[in-house]
């Protein structure tokens, strides 16, 4: 299923015979570079929010905040390192690879919180599910910046790109305790972040669609992911209450005593 998306474009005619990313590529236009900086910021925003989301939710479920935050953040950073290392293999197909990982990230993020809550209830060790979520999300977010960096086609853009990366992280870290957690709660937040990743993929797809061989398929896949994420947001509270009721028999008490 995935292979056709990530494969280099088929050589149907002479015009398509050249690779999508030539050894000496033409420099990006300033607007395109600015868009990539923005993408790095959004990617970092969601990345830090995922770290804090998983660390906080694990603390909510299992307590011991210092242990959980240290475990989740360091494990995620190590996974990011692996992701960053793996991204080397996809440099020649940076754009489709980036779009693909954003879609996978959106799905992983959306299911991680309900999966953790279920594992807490069931006999499945929550740390097993947590490790799966942290490593999965960590590897993917580790790929984001090197791939975007490659898309900029310039080494000089790296410090600025890193600045936007870190600045996005800063905003994400501030937004988490002030807005994301108190206003949205865990289930809705996971859906919102998934929608952010799908939206980011869409934002990059539109201006760079000409360098893709299956841009329509990508458009359908990303739009589908975005719609699913929005649906998840709409039904997040219902899902939470449904799980609470069916797993722990917690009823929704709408009145105060």
């Amino acid at each position, binding site marked *: 299923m995935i292979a056709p998306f990530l494969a280099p474009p088929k050589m149907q005619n002479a015009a398509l015979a050249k690779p999508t990313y030539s050894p000496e590529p033409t420099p990006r236009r300033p607007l395109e570079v600015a868009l990539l900086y923005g993408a790095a910021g959004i990617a970092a925003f969601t990345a830090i929010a995922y770290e804090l989301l998983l660390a906080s939710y694990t603390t909510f479920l299992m*307590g011991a905040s210092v242990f959980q935050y240290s475990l989740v953040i360091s494990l995620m950073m190590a996974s990011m390192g692996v992701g960053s290392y793996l991204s080397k293999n996809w440099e020649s197909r940076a754009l489709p690879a980036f779009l693909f990982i954003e879609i996978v990230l959106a799905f992983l993020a959306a299911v991680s919180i309900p999966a953790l809550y279920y594992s807490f209830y069931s006999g499945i060790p929550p740390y097993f599910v947590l490790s799966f979520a942290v490593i999965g999300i960590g590897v993917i977010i580790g790929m984001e910046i090197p791939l975007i960096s490659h898309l900029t086609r310039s080494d000089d853009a790296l410090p600025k790109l890193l600045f936007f990366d870190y600045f996005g992280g800063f905003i994400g870290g501030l937004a988490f305790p002030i807005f994301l957690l108190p206003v949205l709660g865990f289930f809705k937040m996971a859906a919102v972040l998934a929608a952010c990743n799908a939206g980011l993929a869409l934002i990059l797809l539109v201006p760079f669609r000409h360098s893709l061989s299956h841009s329509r398929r990508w458009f359908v896949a990303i739009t589908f992911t975005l719609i699913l994420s929005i649906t998840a947001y709409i039904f997040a509270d219902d899902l939470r209450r449904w799980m609470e009721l069916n797993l722990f028999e917690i009823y929704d008490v709408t009145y105060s005593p």
Partner: protein
Amino acid sequence: MSLTVLKGQRKRPSIFRITLYTLSVIASGCGFVTQMLVAGYWSTAFSNDVLFFSVSTAFYFLSLGLGSLNSTRWKFARVEQLFGLTLFLCFWTGLSIIMLKYGIRTKGEIFLFPLAIVFVSGFVSGQIIPLTIRLSKNDVPINLGTLFFFDYTAAIAFTFLFTFVLLIPLGYQNTSLVLSYTCLAATIGLLIACRIRSKAAWGLTLFALVGPAAGTLLLKHAVQAPTFRGGLKGETAKVLINEQSHYQKIVFTEELGSNPFHPTTPEHILYLDGFIQFNSIYEQNYHFCLANIPAFVAEDSGAPVKRALVLGGGDGLVARNLLGIKSIEHVDQVELDPRMIELARTEPHLRKYNRDAFHDPRVKLIAADAFRWVREAPRGVYDLIVIDFPDPKNVTLSRLYSSEFYSYVLPLLSAKGVLSIQSGPVFELTDPEHLTLSRMPTTIIKTLASIRQDSYVYYNPRDHDAFVIATRDPQFDMERFAEKSGIAESPHHSNLCKYRKYWRVPAVETNTLNTLTLTEYLLDWYASAGGAYFERSGNYAVFLPE
């Protein structure tokens, strides 16, 4: 600073590359663990873990970004710069916790201190990767993905070593020193391997070697716990126990003269993480409400308590009261902190107050996490369960007041079993008439209601502590019981405990593991009271984690 280009670096690319990678790894690990230590220390001291971990992580990222941006201003990149940054980071890391302690000790809870420490750490670390990339151009260019791989992998290695292995036995301050000197040792090794003879580099090495130790010695006296000020007038109190266990800071004090009617009777107070656990003069009232009233309820239902479970209450005072009940045959005592159990068994004053409850053969001591324990405990065997956890000042404690937790606890009760819960402050302070129930007991009642369990609240009029009680007996009538036992709020009844039927109740959310709103309610209550005890008493230094 006089900087010289590393001689022979082109001839020996392997050493040069090892140096680059290793320094980058050291700096990343050092900066990251410093941030974790500072965030951990602050959140342990001041409870609000989610907020502070998030904000400090945010500032760490911002400072990394600004550091990265700052590196673009340099015209030249030299390996000595990298050494300089790493050495400064070693120095800063070693001083981070002692500086934080000093800041709290002298100025109190100012959010800016930890953020400033994290910011400097991140700003220096943030310059390392761009610098490494530029330096590598002189040699074999380093792939960005590879560099990130090493840097991020270092973070997990450092975190495991310093926050999981060393933090508990050594404490925050010593861990920061060990981290600093470990990094310094590795950096000195590389300086020697690279044959760097720059005076500036070695001067900075000396600075990083002496600085943390000297700074710690210099500030150690200033951050040492001062004489404990207790009582209403701030009399000097004797600190009998002041130690950091794996789970909490345990402080036990002795004061004389705080009670005007008994000036020679010593008043002993146990504090856990700065919050009063019991006060020897007034605790009888509290424990009577918490343990004996529910035992009367069980007796009233025709099922006298034979087998009881105590969750929390490691001081042994609930167990003492339960052992005083004639019908009691067995008490299971579940306490998280083994050190607290040991103190309750061995410390002479605590033994006197708990009347050696933990030496009684009817008491079975279990050192375990209550949440984990209740999930596997035998069902339907306890006639009385007493929950005496500290107030839910952080989410770790708030979990123990959640619907999910109670859904595991209730099935442990026998057919007419009774559950009693320590429920924090009873009055909402914004209502001077004291007619409004505070949000903490209100939430606990609503949380029990969410799992289809009726409950009632009564309070200790001396300290205004609320207690929530729930029974499995469907015939139980609280009003009748209150009248019969003499706890109904009326001028004719005793002042030991008071039950009031009608309250003004605030709007609250159910406390489930997905929301844990109780911590926010409690911290709001403390804010309206002018801060928690440890914040108001001026005894910051005593209560700070080690």
